[in-house]
Every structure is written in structure tokens, then in C-alpha cells.
């Protein structure tokens, strides 16, 4: 039976979810799919985290204790890949699925069946990728950046499956993005003009463009690898007139926008949360939008800042240094706007707000180290050391990851109709906050002292900081089990939540009851000034 939902008599047509496993396999509902994405990404986060714990356990002390160097490289590689493609990106897509239709006043995503396809490709792709770890010859061991020729001529056989896994993930991301763009541009309720859209919607719109522009380029890069490996082409082999450095150019043309793909939706989330708990309108809505757009634009012309040491001509180095530095300006605008939003507000500090404030502070610190890395002559000293590892974990863990956690605490009342336990939430926050800093702050120092990344063993002078970092990693890791407990506890026995679960919350999603009905808006809602951000 197809559902045609009519505004006036939708009750007799509207039905809730089906029962059983098939509900999840066959669903076309944005909430079901959002839920699938979120649980999938949480599972991947735990898997990626366990790999990180293997890394940290091995690095606890100098010397080889637990794993062989070969296996260590597989851990590093798969940790990076799983966290980036399996944990952070799907989590944001899951949030987009849950929130965008509700925030723009639509019943569902624009292309619901394709939505299901985008999700179900992922478990297959990651199943394939993780299974390579158990193959003869081992899994990918060339870093998440898989530079040729280590990933071509010198790669284990499993690289073929890795390549196809990347193709599949790319297809999934592209379809997901097309869906998001079509939903945003096409399904907004009357009166929801572009400059009234919630910031999460805005940031995702721009992120989706980034994804559509760069995922195919990544597909191109792995395709060239496939041909170099199996069909004797010479894209990345100088002996045939190609160039290994060209791989890096193509990869980072994808890779740099990719890191902003992992942070722009976070900017959106944090904007909602800070405004809500400051009980104030978001400061500088339109400059927020323009800042995100400028960051997205700049992200296409800075890629070679990951390649300062490959030996580019001077003019290239200077161009990429200047363009990279420029990103600090729009990002600064965002940081200042958040603080101005808090300024003279009437703040309370529930768990989402705590995570959001920690985001602002720690992300900015990661941004500062990013800016230091952008200074080419000094990057020679930082490049491929733990200073870089510290930089990107500051923007990714207390950055992207904290924003996702904050979003879950913030919207879970809307999703489940139940409120999480505030004290447990706060406990989770403080453990995470302390853990994350113990883990990653010392890495700045080991990096400056000269410890290269991607090594299973290190010289003695790095020992103290590594030990500290490993201790932090275990604290941080195990405090995520508190999160898991909070989630299950909320779903099973949380206290009922109101429609507008937070006092200062604005937006169409809060006009719906909690939990939100299976089909969010069966008839177009009225967009009033009270519910928009602009």
C-alpha cells in the first residue's frame, strides 16, 4: 500500500512503523533511517575507538609490547578510516535525516527509497573493509591518506577490496547529499525562505555541495590506483611518466574539503545549542551563513597545505600558505558570534550546553594549531609529527565528535519523547572533557619534541607524554560507555519530555509533540517569526 497523506484526513492513513527486522531493512522513513545511521556510527565509533586503544596501548611505553609494526600500521589506517568515514560522517547524515525534514517542515526526505539505499550500502562497505583485517596479508596498512606507491605497488592484496569499499562509501555519500539538497531546496514549508532556515540546515546544504563536489574526485583517485595495481597504468609511477605526488594532489583536493565536511554541520549544531541555552537569538545569523559559505569556498583552494614537504615550487607554497591562513577569518567570525550569542544571555548549563561550550574552546585551540601548521616554513618542523595528530584530534574529537554528542543530548527528547538523566549526562561530559585533554594535549609536546606519527615505537625522550596520552585515551574511551548507558537508560526509562523540551528552544521541530510523529509534518506548518533564526 502506498501512502498518500492528505492534510485534512490524514489520521486514517497515517500509520506507525511496521514491526520486526524488516522495518529496518525496508524502511523509507527518515526517522528510522536516521536512527539506523546513528546507531551504525556509534558502533563504528566503538570499533574505531578500540583500534585507537590498541595504538595507545602499544605506545604506552617505548619498545614493542603488544603488536607487530605491520599490525600497528593496520590499526592506524583503519582507525583513521573508520572514524572519518564510519563514525563522524554517518553520524552527521543521521542527524540530517532526523532533523532536516522536521526543521524545514517536511514530512520526510525528498527521495525516501534512495535514502534507504544510501544507508544500507554502508554496512556492506564497512563489513568488506573490516574483513580485510582478517585476510591473508592483512588489511590496509598505508595510512588513511593511502599515499601511492605504498598503496599501489607495495600494498597488500586486500587493497582491491579497500578500493571498492571507498567506491561504495562514496556512492552512499553522494546519494545522501543529493537527497539532502533536494529536501532543503524543494520541501521547505511555505514561508521558510532560505535566509530563515535553521543553521543546521544551512550548514548541511553547503556540506552536501562539498560532498558532491569531492567524493567523485576520491572515486577517481582510487580508480587510478586500481588501474595502476591491476592494469599496469602509470599514473603514480615516475618510470612511466606519472608522479606519486600527483596522487597527493588528487587525494587532498578531496581530503581538505572532507575535513570541513566533518566540521560544518557541527557549526550548525553548536549555533542551535548556544542560542537555546543562552535564551537569546543567535548573534549574526547572516554572517554565520556567509562565513560557512566562505569556508566552503576556501576549502577548495588550500589542499596542498598537507603537502608542504613534497617539494612544490615556491610560488605554490606561498599561495597555499596564504589561502590556508585566510580560513581563520570566517572561522573567527563564527567563534566571535557564538560568544556574542552567549554575552548577556541568561545561561544554564545542561549537558548539551556543556559540550557546546567545550566545543567552542577546544575547537578554537585546534584551529590555532591549524594556523600554526599553515605557516609553511614552520610546518616543516611540525609535519608528520604528533603535533599534527594533536591538531586534528582537537578539531575532530572535542570538535566534530563533541558536537554530535551535544546534538544527541539536545534532540534526544524529541526523538524518544524521554529526557535523559542530567547527572549522568554531566558525569559523561566531565569525564570526556578531562579525558580528551589528557589524551591529546600532551601530543602537542611530543610532536614539538620531534616524535613522528605512525610509528609503533619511539625514542626515550617521548616516553612521559605518551604514557600520559595513553592514560587519557583509556579514560576518554571508557567514559563513552557512560554515554551508551545514558542512551539506553533514556530510551527504556527516561522521564517523559515535553514538546518544547528546552525553555529557550526555537524551531519547527519543537512545535511537534515529543516523540515526533512518524511522519513529521503531514501538512505544511506555519512558519512564524518566533520559530526562525534569521
Amino acid at each position, binding site marked *: *500500500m*502506498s*501512502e498518500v*497523506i*492528505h*492534510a485534512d484526513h490524514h489520521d486514517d492513513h497515517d500509520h506507525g512503523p511496521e514491526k520486526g527486522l*524488516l*522495518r529496518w531493512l525496508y524502511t*523509507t522513513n527518515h526517522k528510522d533511517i536516521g536512527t539506523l545511521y546513528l546507531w551504525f556510527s556509534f558502533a563504528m565509533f566503538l570499533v574505531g575507538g578500540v583500534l585507537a586503544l590498541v595504538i595507545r596501548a602499544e605506545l604506552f611505553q617505548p619498545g614493542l609490547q603488544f603488536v607487530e609494526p605491520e599490525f600497528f600500521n593496520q590499526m592506524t589506517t583503519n582507525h583513521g578510516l573508520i572514524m572519518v568515514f564510519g563514525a563522524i560522517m554517518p553520524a552527521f547524515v543521521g542527524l540530517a535525516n532526523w532533523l532536516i525534514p522536521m526543521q524545514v517542515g517536511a514530512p*520526510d526526505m*525528498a*527521495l525516501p*527509497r534512495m535514502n*534507504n539505499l544510501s544507508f*544500507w*550500502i554502508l554496512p*556492506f562497505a564497512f563489513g*568488506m573493509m573490516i574483513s580485510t583485517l582478517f585476510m591473508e596479508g592483512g588489511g590496509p596498512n598505508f595510512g588513511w591518506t593511502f599515499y601511492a606507491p605504498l598503496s599501489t605497488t607495495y600494498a597488500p*592484496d586486500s587493497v582491491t*577490496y579497500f578500493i*571498492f569499499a571507498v*567506491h561504495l562509501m562514496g556512492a552512499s555519500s*553522494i546519494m545522501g547529499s*543529493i*537527497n539532502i*539538497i*533536494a529536501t532543503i*531546496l*524543494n520541501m521547505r514549508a*511555505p*514561508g*521558510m*525562505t532560505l535566509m530563515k532556515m535553521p543553521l543546521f540546515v544551512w550548514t548541511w546544504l553547503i556540506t552536501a555541495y562539498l560532498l*558532491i563536489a569531492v*567524493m*567523485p*574526485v576520491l*572515486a*577517481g*583517485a582510487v*580508480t587510478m590506483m586500481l*588501474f595502476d595495481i*591491476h*592494469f*599496469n*597504468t*602509470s*599514473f603514480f609511477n*615516475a*618510470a*612511466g*611518466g*606519472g608522479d606519486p605526488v*600527483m596522487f597527493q*594532489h588528487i587525494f587532498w*583536493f578531496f581530503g581538505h574539503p572532507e575535513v570541513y565536511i566533518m566540521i560544518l554541520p557541527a557549526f550548525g549544531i553548536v549555533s542551535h545549542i548556544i542560542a537555546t541555552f543562552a535564551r537569546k537569538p543567535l548573534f549574526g545569523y547572516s554572517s554565520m551563513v556567509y562565513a560557512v559559505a566562505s569556508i566552503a569556498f576556501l576549502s577548495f583552494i588550500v589542499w596542498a597545505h598537507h603537502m608542504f614537504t613534497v*617539494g612544490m*615550487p*615556491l610560488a605554490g607554497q606561498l599561495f597555499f600558505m596564504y589561502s590556508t591562513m585566510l580560513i581563520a577569518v570566517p572561522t573567527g567570525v563564527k567563534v566571535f558570534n557564538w560568544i556574542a550569542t552567549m554575552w548577556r544571555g541568561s545561561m544554564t548549563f545542561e549537558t548539551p550546553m556543556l559540550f557546546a561550550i567545550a566545543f567552542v574552546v577546544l575547537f578554537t585551540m585546534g584551529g590555532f594549531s591549524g594556523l600554526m601548521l599553515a605557516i609553511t616554513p614552520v610546518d616543516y618542523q611540525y609535519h608528520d609529527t604528533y603535533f599534527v595528530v594533536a591538531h586534528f584530534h582537537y578539531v575532530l574529537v572535542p570538535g566534530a565528535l563533541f558536537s554530535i554528542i551535544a546534538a544527541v543530548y539536545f534532540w534526544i527528547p524529541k526523538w524518544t519523547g524521554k529526557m535523559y538523566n542530567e547527572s549522568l549526562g554531566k558525569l559523561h561530559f566531565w569525564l570526556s572533557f578531562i579525558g580528551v585533554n589528557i589524551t591529546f594535549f600532551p601530543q602537542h609536546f611530543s610532536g614539538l619534541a620531534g616524535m613522528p606519527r605512525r610509528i609503533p615505537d619511539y625514542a626515550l625522550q617521548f616516553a612521559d607524554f605518551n604514557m600520559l596520552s595513553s592514560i587519557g585515551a583509556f579514560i576518554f574511551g571508557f567514559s563513552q560507555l557512560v554515554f551508551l548507558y545514558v542512551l539506553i537508560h533514556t530510551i527504556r526509562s527516561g522521564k517523559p519530555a515535553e514538546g518544547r523540551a528546552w525553555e529557550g528552544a526555537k524551531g519547527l521541530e519543537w512545535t511537534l509533540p515529543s516523540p515526533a510523529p512518524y511522519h513529521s509534518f503531514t501538512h*505544511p506548518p506555519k512558519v512564524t517569526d518566533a520559530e526562525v533564526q534569521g
Partner: protein
Amino acid sequence: MSSATEVDNSIYYVPERGWYPVFLAFGLMVLVTGLGSWLNETRAGEAGSWTQSLIGLAITSFVLYCWFAKVISENAQGMNNAMLNRSYVWGMGWFIFSEVMFFAAFFGALFYVRALVVPWMGGEGDKGLTGTYLWPEFEAVWPVISNPDPALFTNPGNTMAPPSTPSAWATYLPFLNTVILLSSSVTVHFAHTAIKQENRTKLIGWLGFTVLLGIVFLGLQVAEYIVAYRDMGLTLGSGIYGSTFFLLTGFHGFHVTMGTFILLVQLFRALKGHFSHKDCFGFEAASWYWHFVDVVWVGLFIFVYVL
């Protein structure tokens, strides 16, 4: 930018749950793991087996067939509203953009190699040291006819460069193919006009003709590859010229194959009486795709063959 106000928003069509997507994902996985193990077996010098890939392909095709049939029948029952149709338009548009970016990666590789790597290896420019120190024999010309290390990558015997005399262009395959493909863009446009005029015979005629042109193009392309491999000694393994040449034209050829097939499907639909002047999205999507493939060819013709 479309504003949502013009449509009747009181009707949203949300399709029922369906088995297609998850089976499609499954089929794709069977297909690629099959391909992967075939490739690895072949590389190890064993006789690889195609069976799994074919099963995957069969699942994928079957699901896609059912899925599209379902969408077409839903549309025929009038379930789609203007909003959904517009979502399809956005969807197809951005899908084509993603394809553009896929080709951009390969064009980017071509430009990077031609403009920077080859001169550097020939000892010119900022990084000319690479050439003078490591590859003193290498000569910076494009197409590269003598590879830096011919022992590893055999030199191409010949290239696809255009003939020097204008009269010889008449038999220059890529030129003929350009003419064919450009004409096919025109004929597919005529077919579209025919739909707008509700003239079915004309539609079938022009569409059929377009498909035919597509097939001829592919035939010539195959002929060119045969000549390249058999007579010219230009292969995938002939260094960077062969690599860029075959991957660019090959992926283009693959897209023409897909495009021809899609148009063929539209032809069958036209024969079955589908499409009206108000409702012909399937056809339009196919024709956009076709125009896109055409534009890519023009880029190829200029940058891969002529210049």
C-alpha cells in the same frame, strides 16, 4: 530557487517501505567483492572466476529493473506530485554534476602531467632537477612516446595525434566520432521536441536514430581500441600517455554505453506509449545525461586528441 509556495503542499507522497534498496546494496556488494577476488586471482597469475561478479550484476540489474518499473507505475497512477517531480530534477542534476567531478579528476591528472610533470622530468622548470639528475634521457614532449623507463613501461608505438593534412581529417576516427556524437545531441533534442508536440512517430524515429548513433560511436571506439592495441602498440601499460588516454576515453565510452542503454529503455517506453508533453521526466533525464556525455567528449576531443 524554487519557493515551496506554488505547490499544493497538502499532499505529500511518501512511498511505502520497499525491498529494493537493501537488495540493491547487497547486489552491489556481491558484485564488487566478486570483481575484487577476480582481479586478485588474475594478478596472482591464477585463472580468475567471473561467477560471483555475474551473480552480483544479475541481482543489481534485476533490482534496478523492478525499482524503475515500480516508480514508473506509481507515476502512471498519478501518485507523484509536482514536488516529487522537482526532487527528481534536482536529483538528476546533481548526479550529473557528480559525474562531472569524476571526469574532472581524470582531466586534472591529464593537465597536471602535461603542464608540470612531463616538463619537470624533461629537465625544464622549477623542478627540472628531477629530469637532469634522474632521467637524463627523457625528452619532454606530449604525447610521451618515449617513457622515462622503457624497460618497465614499453613505449607506445604511435599516438592518436590528429593528421597533419586537412583532407585526412575525413578518415580521422575521433573526428568522425565527434560529428556522430554532436549530431546525436541534436537528434535527441528533436525527439524531445516531438514529445512536446505529442508526435509519437517522430519521437520514436528520432530516439531510435539517436540510439543508433550511440551504437555506431561505440563501434568506432572499439575499432580504435583494437587498432591501438594490435597495430599501434598503444596499451594501458604504455606509460602516462596510454594511461590517461585509455582511462579518459574508456570511462567516457562506459558512460556512452550507459547512456545508449538508458536511451534504449526510453525507446521501449516510447513504443509502449509512455511519455506525454507534460510528463516525460524519464526521457528528459536520459537526454540530459546524453548531452553531458557529449560535452565530455568535446573536452576529450580537444585535450586528448587534438592538442
